[in-house]
Every structure is written in C-alpha cells, then in structure tokens.
C-alpha cells in the first residue's frame, strides 16, 4: 500500500489533489481512498489531505501517520508545521518551490535521511502560466506521477478531465503537460 500525505493551505486545492490522485489510481485499476484532515476550513490555514493506493481493498480510516509519499504544496509550511512527522525512511518528497533543496535549507535533513528522495518543482509558476492563478495542486499530482510512475500520466490526465469538465479541464491538462516536460528536462525519474 502507498500512503500519501499532502500539506498545503486552505484555498490551494489540497483536498482536490488527494481526490485526483485517488481517482487516477482507480483509473489505473487500483483501490484508492482520499480524505481530508477535517481541520478548520479557513483560507490560508494549514490543511492536510490523505490518499491511500493499494491492490487490495482499503479498510483503514486512520489518518496517514507514516507517509511513503509527501507532497508539500506550500513551502512556507516547512518551518511552521512538522510536515516530515512519521515519514517513511525511503519516502518520496516533492516540494512546490522555485528553490532547490539546498536553498530551502533541507540539506541536513536529506543527509540525515539518505533513503528519502526529495525534489522541488515550481508548480505554482507552471500553473500561473496556464491558469493565470498559482494553483499548485495539479502540478504536484502530475509531478508525482511523472517522477515515480506510481500513478500513470494517462490516468492523471483522465482524472483532470473528469474532475474539471470543459475549459478548466483543458487548462489544467496543459499544466500537467507542462509539468511532464519540466520533469523530463530538469529532474531525473526516480
């Protein structure tokens, strides 16, 4: 089972990202569950959402305490919320930022956790280009798909179309395509 935890702020589409991931995994023929952390739903407040992907039916209803995958949509949370709590030793971490791991002052963390794969992706900037608004959620989901292959790009694209019919879906599809290109050009597939 893959357990995913997504951190962001109210209004950034964190819950939608979890739903998209679960829907994409379902389209890949897997069992998947997505749910929010049910915090106070205020714009700007820290928000957490969860996703589980498995080949077997998923029964657990507990929050994800030990994520295999951590998606951080807002890097200002890094030093405000304990986003790395319970992280699996060989976890995949993707942070939405124009800065690299070193500039985010995470080098020590990476040295202390040698099996953790950490990447940064300028998801807000890539979204801004197509949507005119810095919604990082689609880019983070697309980046996770492109970097790990744990959900297929085809399924992510299909989920975007299903979740956002019409023009918004097309624009978000363009964001995903841009992220795939960015990952291919700038980041090694893990």
């Amino acid at each position, binding site marked *: 089972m893959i357990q995913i935890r997504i951190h962001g702020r109210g209004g950034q589409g964190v819950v939608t990202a979890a*739903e998209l991931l679960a829907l994409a995994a379902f*389209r890949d023929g897997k069992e*998947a*569950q997505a*749910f929010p952390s049910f915090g106070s739903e205020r714009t700007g407040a820290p928000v957490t959402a969860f996703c589980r992907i498995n080949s077997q039916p998923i*029964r657990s209803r507990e929050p994800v305490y030990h994520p295999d995958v951590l998606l951080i949509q807002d890097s200002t949370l890094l030093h405000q919320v304990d986003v790395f709590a319970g992280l699996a030793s060989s976890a995949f971490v993707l942070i939405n930022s124009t800065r690299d791991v070193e500039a985010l002052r995470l080098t020590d963390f990476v040295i202390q956790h040698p099996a953790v794969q950490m990447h940064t992706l300028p998801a807000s900037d890539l979204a801004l280009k197509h949507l005119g608004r810095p919604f990082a959620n689609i880019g983070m989901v697309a980046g996770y798909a492109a970097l790990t292959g744990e959900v297929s790009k085809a399924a992510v694209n299909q989920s975007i179309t299903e979740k956002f019919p019409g023009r918004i879906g097309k624009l978000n599809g363009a964001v995903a395509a841009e992220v795939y290109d960015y990952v291919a050009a700038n980041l090694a597939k893990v």
Partner: protein
Amino acid sequence: MKHHIEGSQAVAHTVALCRPEVMACYPISPQTHIVETLSRKVKAGEIGNCQFLNVESEFGALSVLIGASAMGARTYTATTSQGLLFMAEAVYNAAGLGLPIVMTIANRALGAPINIWNDHSDSMSMRDAGWIQLFAQDNQEAADLHIQAFRLAEELSCPVMVCMDGYILTHAYEVVDLPTQEQVDAYVPAFEPVQVLDPQDPVSIGAMVGPEAFAEVRFLAHHKHVRALEAIPRLSQAFQDIFQRRSGGLMDTYHTDNAETLLLALGSVNGTIKDAVDELRKEGWPVGSIALCAFRPFPSHALRHVVQDAKRIIVFEKDLAVGMGGIVSSDVKMALQGLPIIVDTVIAGLGGRPIPKASVIDTVKQACLEGLEEPHFLDLNWDEINRELTRQQAQRRSGPTAENLLREVGPPGTKPV
C-alpha cells in the same frame, strides 16, 4: 458499475434511485452534500415524481415528511448533529405514528463545545425514539443500506435512520459499486402504505391516548422492532441475491470463530479494527471483531450466539453517557447477562479524534494482560486534564473549560491529532 466517488454523492445517487416522492431539507450547516445533490437532481427532473421542499428548520423538515408520509408518499431527509436535536420532537412523533420515513444521519458530535467533527452522539441521543438505526461500515454499505432501509421501513411501517460517519465517510472518496435503476426497482417495491389519509375514506392519525392504552401502543412499537430483528437479515439476504454483495444484516463478524477476545464497534472504525485484528492475529493473539449494523433494534439474541465462546468483549464506542460510561457497552452487557464474559468499554473518537490502529492494538493488549478501568478513554491527554482540574481547585472563577484547554493545545486544526 464501480465509481470512485465521495460518500455523500454515492448516497445521493442511490437515494434518487429509490424513487422518493417528497424530500424536505434544511439547507444549513450542519448538512451534507447529500441533500445538495438531491435538490439538484429533483430540479433537473432526474427523480420522476418528486417534490423537494426547502424548509425553515430541521423541525420543519421532519414535520413536512410526517404529513407527506401520512398521505402515502415515499419520504426522505438527512441531517446531523444539532440538526437532529432540533428535530427531536418530530423524531419521536414519526416513530410513534409508525411512518416509514428514511433519514440519513451523517454522524457528528453534539455541542457544547461547538465541534463539527465525527462521533455518534447525535444518533445515540435518539436511540430510544422508536426509529430503526443501521450503521454503515464504509461508503458501499452506506449506499446499500439506504436501499434496504426503504424496503424495511415500508414493510414494517417504521422509520429508519441510516447512520454514516460524518466526514470519515461522507467526505471520503472511495470505490463504490453504484446500483442500476433496474436493480433497485427489483428490490424496492412500490410503496403500499399501512395507513394513509384519504378524503374518500377519512381516518384520523395522531389521536390522544390515555393511560388505558398508551402502554399497549408502546408495546406494539417495541414488538415492531422485535419483528425487525427477523426482517433485517432477511432483507440483507434478498439484497445479496439481486446485487451480488453482502451489505447490512444485524452484524458483520470477522474472525469470531475461536476468538477469545472480540472487539465490537459501530460504523467506519470497523475498517481500522479489522486491520488491527489481522495484525494481532499475526502476533498470535486470538482476537476477532463484530461490526454491529443494527443498533436499534439491538440484536441481543444473535449477539449472544456469536460471542458465547469468547472470554472478553471490548466495545469501542464514539459516544459517552456522561455520568455512566458506555451506551453500546451497556446494551452489550444487558444482552450477555448471565454469560461469563468480561465486557470492557473504550470511549474513543469523540469529536473527530482519530482512532489509530496502534492505539486499538495497545488497548487490546492492555485489556488482555492487565484489564481496563471502566470506562476506559482512548488516548486521553492527562496532562491537560490534570492542569485544568488543578486550575478549577485553585480558584472558583476558573473560566470556561473549553477555552482554558484551547489556550494550552491551540485552536482546532493547528496541530496533528
């Protein structure tokens, strides 16, 4: 067909297929996406002969349905938390009049303090009102129980609450096999009311009953629930025949054979509990679990039969009878009286506190090795409790308890729980 869908949407879709004729809902928080979606479906003409009434309150919602049901219409509403309390008088009336209304309860805590999160306090507050109460383990069962609820309610002429965990199920996206209209039509026959207001054949419903007959009327309501104990498993089997999956019934048992310790709970926490049972069994602990679907009527006889060889039952319940302890465990103890079985009460998941698998496992081990105090509260923060008790002892004007605790732990949502 299998869909990846939010729990509320799955229920709304399924309720629509049950061909309700009158729905009355109060569109305010606390509510769910269920009635929001149903109102859209009615407006779009997707539910044939159906009227949707936007009413002035939850009390108004159920009162409208009492009238509509007495006129012979198939009726539905949904509510949660304080909304159910505001309905309370009508809740008792609907049952007392024997009207087969189906209502979803998206289970949430009751204030004060204000809390929008999940527990079972709302449904438990109405447990003696005369409604059948069925609890869903997951969103598939939540959807399926509504189909069974309409048939059960109308067969017995008794209202049914389908209880599903607020947020944990209502807001969770997971795979649900949504039925077809043909399947639902094959299972839920057209509504043939037991009693109906008809100008051509006038009767009065809701007469005043004095001491001469009140007890008899109440006994007959109880007798109806006794009949439901037979109907619930029968209709669950009939459901399985058409839909090819198991849903509902009095209870769902998991590794109960040869189990010395059984965990018992209502609702979605049974998923986590089953995972805990698997892990404990791997370590050699002879444990199993029971997911109680029917809480009203309480399946005492069936439960005695299932647990007769066990030594201990640990009831995990998301409610608290203040000043007493467990609500579900009290019923379990009454059902098992005379049997040499220890019944432990674990109060857990209040106001949305997560119930981690690790805590379930630790509690089971502690119960088996050392025993549990009665009632046992899962994962309590004793530091905060003792700090507040000390504060209260030190000064009479110690301030509001909830606000004092918030000052220590921070506002909701700022810390992982």
